[in-house]
């Protein structure tokens, strides 16, 4: 049913592109959050993008990360399990390093890292999703998505443009925030801003969608930013060479391609 509503809404936004306030107001908060998560992380059955990260530290110094991501949704199910393949190209010292994630909505993710200089496939023992991804202000969870089931959601307000949703972690020990507030665009379900509040209910971390493009029919955030006042600085993430529903066999997400990346699938 949720999927049906979502596809109707998506069809509406893409084809007619007018707001559908009557339908929207009938949505309960869990559906809104589900749709927003599906919009941000599960569009299409799979996808590819080249990512360019600019990390600016508290002193204003810049570092660059470039990588290509392949993603597939296991069983093409929104908000279900996913597999990710990442090929790093910059900075130079990580060129050729590959990273494989099997994201499990139930339980810890499985992660493998391949170091080409050693021809070594390492298994990564990491359960904390809220640690920095490649030294940036993005957490693993910001890149691969946070399951809507991990939080209790409350619709705070519905404005002309946004659903304003407060989410509080069900397992408070597994998160460094007590709540986060999402401004979800009503037409597209794109989360435009997410604000994270610490135990004093002080805002310390903000995600902002900066630019949206439509690729293969899917509105896609191509530029975004996370700013963190505790560590200082911010990271800007830009996606290029975006493609959805490519011919991507699930066999790509295996050790074979960790050692020898599927170059033809990785695009330009």
């Amino acid at each position, binding site marked *: 049913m949720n999927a049906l509503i979502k596809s109707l809404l998506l069809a509406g936004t893409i084809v007619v592109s007018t707001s559908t306030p009557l339908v929207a107001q009938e949505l309960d908060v869990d559906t809104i959050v589900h749709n927003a998560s599906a919009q941000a992380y599960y569009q299409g059955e799979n996808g590819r993008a080249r990512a360019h990260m600019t990390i600016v530290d508290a002193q204003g110094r810049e570092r660059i990360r470039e990588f290509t991501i392949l993603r597939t949704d296991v069983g093409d199910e929104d908000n279900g399990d996913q597999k990710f393949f990442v090929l790093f190209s910059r900075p130079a*010292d990580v060129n050729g390093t590959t990273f494989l994630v099997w994201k499990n909505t139930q339980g810890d993710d499985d992660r493998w890292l391949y170091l080409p200089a050693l021809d070594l496939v390492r298994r990564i023992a990491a359960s904390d999703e809220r640690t920095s991804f490649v030294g940036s202000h993005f957490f693993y969870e910001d890149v691969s998505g946070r399951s809507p089931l991990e939080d209790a959601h409350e619709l705070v307000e519905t404005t002309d443009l946004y659903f304003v949703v407060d989410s509080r972690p069900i397992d408070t020990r597994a998160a460094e925030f007590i709540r986060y507030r999402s401004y979800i665009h009503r037409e597209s379900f*794109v989360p435009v801003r997410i604000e994270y509040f610490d135990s004093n209910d002080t805002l310390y971390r903000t995600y902002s969608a900066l630019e949206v493009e439509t690729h293969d029919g899917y*509105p896609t955030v191509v530029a975004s930013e996370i700013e963190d*006042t505790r560590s200082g600085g911010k990271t800007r993430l830009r996606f290029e060479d975006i493609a959805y529903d490519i011919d991507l066999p699930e066999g790509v997400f295996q050790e074979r391609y960790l050692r020898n990346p599927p170059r033809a699938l990785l695009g330009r």
Partner: protein
Amino acid sequence: MIMRCMAAILGLALFSGSLGEAEAQPPSLPTGLSPPQQDEPNASNLPVLPPGLIEAPEADQTRSDEMGREVSETRLFTGLTGFIDWRVGSRARGNRNHPSTIMHELRGQVRGEWSTPAGTFALTTDLVLDDVEDDLAVNLNTGEGFVDVREASLLLRPTGNLDLKVGRQVLTWGTGDLIFLNDMFPKDYVSFFGGRDEEYLKAPSDALRASLFFNAVNVEFIYVPQFDADRFLTGERLSYFNPALDGIVGPGAVIAPTIPDRWIQDDELAIRLYRQFGAFEVAGYAYRGFWKSPAGQSASGTPVFPELSVYGASARGPVLGGIASSEFAYYDSMEDVAGRSALTPNSQLRWLVGFEREAGPNRTISVQYYQERRMQFDSWARYQTGRVRSEDETRHLVSARLTQLAANQNLTLSAIAFWSPNQDDLYVRATAQFKLNDIWRINGGVNAFAGPRDDGFFSQFRDNSSIYFGVRRSFAT
């Protein structure tokens, strides 16, 4: 944007007001600081819609028909990357066999990859100015001299389920952390103990690697037409225990073995069968070749590499919130006859178990237990002329590692300690690496060996305990 600035000024005014008198000129907020936000949203708190959502989504920025072309437009050459690395290492204390400088070199590495739909050629070459080694003659097998080719390989995918990689390449498999059971590919212990980066622990092989992928099981064949020995400790650069001389020796007693080097006759074959059951990886291994270090002696006393076959298996997967691994290997010493030769190593049973898990933000801990058991020890010991330590029938080894990332993951601190309770010796490897930016990196480390025995596996190297420091500049074209 104006809204946000106003909110910032408003928030700042409120904040400074609560502190007492407002400054005439409030300091501007540093980069990255946002004003305190109100709990309840108001008009100024709402985000501005980003471009792309403001109006009706425009026509697709990509269309499906473009995609096929994009995919085939893979670049032939992805540019060169590499580094220049200077490092210096010093022994911790005086050594009667060697000078205090254990490492002093300038190394440049260039990596390149050329891809076509048919295949990929990869080249990685090091140029080395080594102040410790006098001999500049190039030997690509031992890595001596001013050129060390790490990789020169061609990868082909002739059919959908076959990868062929031909040429010089670094090869690794198995589950141990710095302990290799079924990985019979050459190691460079001179580099590893001398203060080079961990990637130099693996020496390259000249090999044909055929990987076949099936649903039931994946199979890898690695054929090495000419035996690749480890780059083992010969006494030239690092001192070691020589049983014939019953002492720790150096350049005065350099090991000069007879290395099997006939093409095709002195070859190596390694096979791995592996598959996953869910998140668990299971593998079986077989190897036919030679002991990788000169483990035997000829009748005339020359160190030799006796023939060896290895059979083993491993498993690795998520357990108790971490990664558990286990591996065993049976080393079948082919030239040994029921342990009746003092000159040939016994067959051995080797196994390990390991566990690694996250222990806080950016912190990982791991532990390993490893055992090495000689199969016909009593018989072998009877034929020994020198003294034999009975506890060496079984060698136990315990290791623990702590890795901590800090400073936005730009600082990596890692230390691993190996301790053998029965040989009573210790090896500690601690490294620190700091990335100043995307180009410059500094690193340093310690290789420390300790133990009372001259002939312990690690304690024989105690005169080589050293610290090192390096600077690296990376580049990319």
